[in-house]
Structure formats: C-alpha cells, structure tokens
C-alpha cells in the first residue's frame, strides 16, 4: 500500500556549488527555486495499479525518486508498506566485466534482497531472463536488450510489495515487453501495489485501475484512466497549439505573396482537437487571400512525420481542381483527410503556386503551418507508417 500526503519537493538552482553549501549550512537563501512537486497526495491500494501521466518535466521522475528514497522531500509524508522496487533502476551497479550470474548477486543486493533470497530465486531469475548459457558470459558481450531482460528479471523477483514501473520497460522487444506486462498483471493479482509511469496512453488505459495527471508539479486529475488520459490529451493539445503558434511566428512563409494563407486550423472530426486517432478524419481549414488577380492557382498540403519525412501530400491540380481569384478576394478552403497513419506527431505544410508545379514559380509556401498528433487507433491496430487495405481469408484444406 502506498500513501502519499502533501508531498512538496523543490530543487534549488544555484549560481555556483559554493553558494549551495553556504545555504545548506547557514539556511540563508542563495538560490532561485524550482518547484518540482507541490502538495501531491494520493493513495494506492494493494492489488491496484495507478497510472501516472504527465509531460516531460511535470514531476513524474521526481515523484518516483522520492518514493524509492533516492531523493528526500521538503515536506509531506510517503508511507510505503513493504519493500519498494523501482524498475527505473534496471541494471544499476551492473559490472560489465562480470558474468550475468555474478551480476544477479550484485544487483539483487542493491535492490535489498538478502543472500538467501537471491540463491532461492537465482534459477527463476535466469529462466525468466531467457539468457540460457549466456548467463555465464561477461556482461560486456550482451546486447542492450539482454541487459534489460536480466535487469527486469532481477527486479521482478525481488518480490517487492510495491513496484514502480518507469519508461525503462519500453527498451525490450515486443515479445519480452508482453512477458513483462503479463508479469506485472500477475504481480497485481497477488495483491501487489504498482505505480505505472508511461507515455503509452493505451497501456495506461488497459493496465491501470486509476490514473493521476501531473502538470507543473501539481496533480490536476485523479480519475479513471480514460478520463485522466483525456485530461492529459487536452494539456498536450494546448501545448501543441502554442507550439504551432510559436513556430508560425518563427518560420515565415516565403514566395511572391500574390496569394497567401491567412489562417489555418487543424482538428479531428470527432476529437475537435489536435489530438486525433488513427483512422479519424482530419479537417483542415485554410483561409486564402489574393493580393493579385490570378487565373490558375493550385493549393497543396503536405503531411510530414517527426523525422521530417513526407508522409502524404496532394494538391488541387492533382485533383483536377482549379482556383481562380480576384485581387483582394478572400476564400475559405476545407480539406478533409482520412488520417490512416501511424501513431506519432505530424506537421502540416501548405503551398500555393501556379498549377502543375511550384518549382517554376511559387506564390506562397509555409512549412510547419500546423501540428497534430495521432494517438491510439480507431480501428484495428497496425504496424508501419500507414494503413493499407488488408484482409485475411482462411481456407481449411482437406487432403
């Protein structure tokens, strides 16, 4: 069981380490303060998994570190019954010169297991890690996935009362991740208490009983996973639109400006925000303003993924549509795109140019006009970057 009451934690930022000592000794202030956690209270019952959501810097790691006792709180109370093991310290103290078997002892001792416990569980740990005979090879010959497997195997066998699961789990391959997830479910079924920190919103929805959302060190939601995830999405969406606005100010469009886009809005048909599900229709609303009379304008949009790779682009010319505008005319354009693309962050670029090609002459071109994010799948899940139409048929053969 975990009880956390009115937890406060601040980090002090100092001009020099010496100021830090001066203050620690005299108590006189020499710092600027950064509030990492502010009045955080929650409880987790045995057999319960609490999800923790929050953006980078929201205080998730600080919270976990306070719970393991690696950091000490300014004020407030953390009450944890039984041994607490964090999966955030996977493989701490591993010595790469030693064999996997020797490292089990070292790492398990650090997690607070006794020598007797270690010997009792050694076989189980080795079996779970699936390292086989590699267990007797020095750790430096292991792949990072193998190191992670060994680390997780030890941590889960430390038989804690409370388990703190961090992003560390996402290192392994799909098969081992599933095995870990199953193990976490078993642990819960046996009455273990789990704190699950993740950016994987689906995992939080599937695995957790409840979830809290941290924002700027405060708990802004403590609710069912579905509600908490929505709350988190709203925070993310707000930030995404701010980001888009900022980037809009930064990269100015280029071109002859004979016709320009004066406003742009991107939102999912159902979600009504920058956060959409894969398979949802993305509605793009652009407002065009012509500064000259043009007979033959082509409008193009381009979706790029987080690597800057073109995912999809099309223009009105390819649709055999032509736009003609008078000088001073303003026209609204609605584009709807079925976003059958993988989960991730995307940017939208738009361009206006004479039909056929923008290379000869360009009226207006703007990269990073807007951003949106695909989170979760509306229909069946898929791997890769986009959905292709796919069907499985079966025929039993009787020879």
């Amino acid at each position: 069981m975990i009880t956390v009451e009115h937890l406060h934690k601040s980090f002090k930022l100092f001009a020099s380490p010496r100021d830090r000592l001066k203050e620690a000794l005299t108590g006189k202030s020499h710092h600027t303060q950064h509030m990492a956690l502010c009045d955080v209270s929650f409880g987790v019952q045995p057999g319960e998994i609490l999800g923790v959501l929050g953006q980078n810097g929201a205080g998730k790691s600080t919270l976990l570190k306070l719970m393991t006792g690696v950091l000490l709180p300014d004020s407030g109370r953390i009450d944890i019954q039984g041994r607490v093991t964090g999966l955030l310290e996977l493989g701490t103290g591993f010595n790469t010169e030693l064999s996997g078997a020797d490292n089990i002892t070292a790492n398990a001792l650090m997690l607070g297991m006794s020598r007797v416990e270690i010997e009792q569980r050694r076989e189980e740990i080795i079996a779970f890690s699936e390292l086989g005979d590699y267990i007797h090879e020095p750790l430096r010959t292991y792949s990072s996935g193998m190191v992670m497997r060994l680390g997780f195997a030890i941590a889960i066998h430390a038989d804690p009362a409370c388990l703190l699961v961090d992003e560390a789990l996402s290192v392994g391959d799909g098969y081992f991740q599933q095995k870990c997830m199953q193990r976490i479910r078993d642990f819960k079924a046996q009455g273990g208490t789990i704190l699950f920190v993740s950016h994987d919103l689906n995992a939080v929805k599937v695995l957790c009983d409840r979830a809290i959302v941290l924002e700027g060190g405060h708990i802004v939601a403590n609710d069912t996973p579905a509600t908490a995830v929505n709350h988190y999405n709203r925070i993310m969406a707000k930030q995404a639109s701010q980001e888009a606005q900022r980037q809009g100010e930064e990269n100015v469009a280029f071109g002859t400006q004979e016709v320009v886009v004066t406003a742009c809005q991107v939102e999912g048909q159902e979600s009504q925000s920058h956060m959409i599900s894969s398979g949802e229709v993305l509605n793009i609303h652009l407002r065009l303003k012509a500064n000259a009379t043009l007979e033959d304008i082509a409008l193009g949009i381009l979706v790029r993924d987080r690597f800057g790779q073109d995912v999809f682009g099309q223009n009105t010319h390819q649709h055999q549509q032509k736009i003609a505008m008078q000088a001073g005319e303003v026209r609204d354009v609605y584009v709807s795109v079925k976003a059958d693309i993988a989960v991730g962050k995307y940017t939208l670029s738009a361009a206006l140019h004479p039909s056929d090609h923008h290379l000869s002459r360009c009226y207006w071109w703007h990269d990073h006009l807007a951003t949106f994010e695909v989170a979760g799948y509306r229909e069946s899940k898929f791997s890769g970057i986009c959905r292709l139409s796919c069907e499985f048929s079966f025929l039993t053969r009787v020879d």
Partner: protein
Amino acid sequence: MQMLRRLQHQLPLVMLLTRQELIDRHKSSLLGRTWTLLSPLINILVFVLIFSTIMGARLEGFGAEVDQYTYSIYLISGILAWTVFAKSLSAITNIFMDRAGMITKVNVSLRALPFAPLLSEAIVYLIGMAFFAVFLLLIGFPISELWLGVPLVLALQLAFTYGLGLLLAVLAVYIKDIREAVAVLLPVWFWLTPIVYVDDIIPPWAREVIALNPLFQFVDAYRALILYQQMPNIAGLAVILGVTLTLLYVALWLLNRTERDLRDSL
C-alpha cells in the same frame, strides 16, 4: 541507534562493494584475485631488498643480528599504515561523486558507502601485515603479545579516516576543488609524517608540531608495538581519540544537515 540499524541493513551491500574493490576489479586479469595478495607482497619485498640488502641501510642501537633489517622494519610498519590511510581517504573523499550513478538510482545509505573502500583497504593492510609478520619470523625478529595492540590502533585509525573522509566527501560535492586538493596534499602530508625518515632528525621545536599530526601518532604507535616492543604513547592516542570523535560528530552533523540537498545535486 536508528542509524546503526540502517547501517546493519546495508551491510550486505557494503560487503559486496568491498568484494568488488578487492577481487572483482581483477576479474578479467590473468592472475585474478592473486593480484590482491601480490601487490602488498611485492611492496614489502622491494623495501626489504632495497633497504636491507642493496643499500644496507642501518639504524643504530638495536640488536646486532637484526641490524641489517631494522630500517626495513621501521619503514614497512610506517608505510603500510600510511597506505591504508591515504588510499581509503582519497577513495572516501570522492565516493559520492564516483558512486553518483548508484546513489541517484537505488536507496543506499550515504553513511554506509564509505565503509566499502575503508574495509577493502583495511583488508589489504591486514594481508600486508601477515606477510610482514612472516618476514619478521623468517629473520628471527621477536613478535610479542604487543602485536595485539595493532588491531586497536588500526580501529582508531580507520575511525579517524572515516570521520575525516566523510567530512571531505560532503564538502567535495559542493567544492569540486577538494578532490584535487586532497590528491595534491596527501603526498605533502606523507613527507610531514616520519615514515621514510627517522623522527630523531627532526629538530626539537618541530617535534611538538609533528606530534599534532594524527598520522604521526598512529605510525609511532605501530612502531612502538612492532619495532621497539613497548607501550605506545597512550596520551597521544587519547588526544587522537578525542579528535576522531569530534570529526565523526562534525561529519555526521554536516551530512544530516545537507543530505537532502546533497542528493539533489548529485
């Protein structure tokens, strides 16, 4: 009391770290753990060979049959004690920074961590002393019951090292210069202690100053027990005991006072 219980809880971890420093660091080498024994042995052999056989250095006023070895005994008893002090002090001074990866990930006691280098160096010292005793037996030098005092002096010396080391370790997190300063000042301290030279050559006025040097008191005590076969300077050791207790108190007070902040800054 609570601190002691927590230390006891961390004992297996301390033993593991000690073991790592002693044995595991030689794991990938050909001779493996033999190195742990080899380095003190070779040290002793070198001193004996150079100062007894080759240079034939002598100290006057001791039994004629061991005359040839007297300076070696003087030197070795001092240098073994110095080595355990210097090595563990510099290791403890840097321990919070060197172990930052561990401290920021698992819940280890900052008070327990320094015991790992302290114990491993003490074990190296005891191995050295065992070789030393064998050497004394071989040359027929008497080993009296005064040797029983050696562990007591060692215990005091280790407590002193722990107190001073912990104090420096906390400060070193805030003042990075301390790491360098300790590295530079330890050799100076070495030459301020009559280890290589005989304290007879010190002018009388300087002797009172040197008597304030805790390391001189330790080295002097070992020599009294091993070489001169007499009771050490109890008054001097009592003063050092007082110094040690003060150091321990100050170091632990400082750590208690700064621990939260110290953990933040690692």
